[in-house]
């Protein structure tokens, strides 16, 4: 594989969370967090994950609840620092971990597009250029100057999604958000993701909807209890997953 064609490299990634609900940290630990993990019980969400993804691939991440899919996606997004190992990416990233992340209920749809847009990675010029497209894609033209607390959940979700699919990242991470929205909107979104992919965007897609994964992805990675269990053709990996559940 030519080096310049690599989009995401994950090497020996281990991700631990400390579980410290029973006890508050001592003041000394809070000040500096020296060797914090030594004194804490930790759970391993990801256990030595290694793989790489080339540019313009569309990869589905599947696995049971708690298998580490979302954690892996958040590590690639840079939200979680690796406990051990490396995550490297080439180019810009946009992640859609939750629809409406970064939205503020008291602000209008317009204000929220500008706010969340910047957090999602849309530059000011891009926002100016695409504002109408974002509003029309979300089908909220009439309500765009109302506070989004007055939006129906469908409108809220459509606006969040529309914003995310108008980002122009090199790598686009999507976590289980297509299940929301009606059939019509879902199809529109899948078409849009396909277009982005054709234009060169690398897609990493987490979903429990295996049919959707087959439709969107040409490669599939199966996580099982924090380990990488399978990696390959969607058909084969999905079958492996189904066998695993049985």
């Amino acid at each position, binding site marked *: 594989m030519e080096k310049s064609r690599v989009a995401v490299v994950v090497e020996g990634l281990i991700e631990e969370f400390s579980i410290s609900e029973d006890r508050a940290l001592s003041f000394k630990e809070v000040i500096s967090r020296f060797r914090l993990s030594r004194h804490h019980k930790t759970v391993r969400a990801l256990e030595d994950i290694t793989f790489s993804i080339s540019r313009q691939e569309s990869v589905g991440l599947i696995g049971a609840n708690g298998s580490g899919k979302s954690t892996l996606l958040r590590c690639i997004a840079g939200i979680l620092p690796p406990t051990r190992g490396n995550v490297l990416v*080439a180019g810009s990233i946009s992640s859609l971990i939750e629809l409406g992340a970064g939205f503020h209920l008291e602000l209008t749809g317009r204000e929220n597009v500008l706010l969340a847009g910047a957090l999602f990675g849309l530059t000011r010029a891009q926002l100016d250029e695409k504002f109408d497209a974002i509003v029309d894609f979300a089908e909220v033209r009439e309500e765009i100057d109302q506070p989004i607390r007055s939006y129906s959940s469908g409108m809220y979700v459509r606006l969040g999604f529309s914003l995310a699919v108008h980002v122009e990242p090199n790598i686009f991470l999507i976590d289980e958000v297509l299940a929301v929205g009606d059939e019509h909107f879902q199809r529109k979104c899948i078409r849009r993701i396909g277009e982005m992919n054709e234009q060169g965007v690398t897609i990493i897609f987490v979903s429990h909807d295996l049919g959707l994964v087959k439709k969107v992805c040409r490669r599939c990675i199966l996580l099982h209890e924090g380990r990488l269990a399978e990696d390959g053709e969607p058909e084969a990996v999905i079958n492996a997953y189904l066998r695993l559940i049985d």
Partner: protein
Amino acid sequence: MQNHESDRVIDELRPPGGSSLVPPMEILRVLVLKELKVKYKRSILGFLWSLVTPIALAAVYLFVFVYVYKVGQEDYVKFLLAGILPWHAFNLSLLAGTTSFVDNGPTIRKVYFPRILLPVSIIIANMVNFLMVLALFSLVVVITGFPLWLHFHWVVLALLLQSLLSVGVVLTLSVWNVYLRDIQQLISIFLMVLFFATPIVYDLSLVPTAFRPFILANPLTSVMQMYRAGLVTGVAPDLGVILLGALESLVILALGYWVFARLSPHLAKEV
């Protein structure tokens, strides 16, 4: 279709933090605007609250000192306001800044952006708001005959020092508060003590010698002395006090950044 700028850097493999196309300053601008917009949403008085609260506080002290104890000094109303108005801004910055990560937990867990922008945006929004208050107060000061333009450099320095100090304290407290929620309870007590440990409702010269070192060691004292000089008295404050305050503020800022740099990568896991 990728733009050319991203094509140039696309071959370089880097850690994912900071892989957004949006420059941090742009994110900061958007966050500050959000703070300013949200602050007075669904409020009738809106911006006027930035005046009403400190004026009410000043009225209470005016009543206690001038009418009950009868100890007021010349220009006591202006003297009080020149201290209470900036104090109010400092107070709000610390309160909102300290809880900024806890308040925005969902956003932090789900979107990557440089974390430092969140508390800093809250302080900038409060300072912008305070600048409007200060503009109004300056107008009053000029109308009552004070040659503000001769002493305004003190106000500028005070604003600078107040901002540095706010950022330094808030960087530390905001991340600590994620691990130890006691901080957000302690902060109100801390602020109450600080209010009286700073020459806001009294003049520094009235402080008994025994307590003076404590008051002088407080970096906010030099901030207040400069506001007084620039807005009320026109008399240059003691340079030693100012330099000490400036030095302390820089140390607090450096410490704040150090604590923040150590703890902030873990925010998404802990908040």
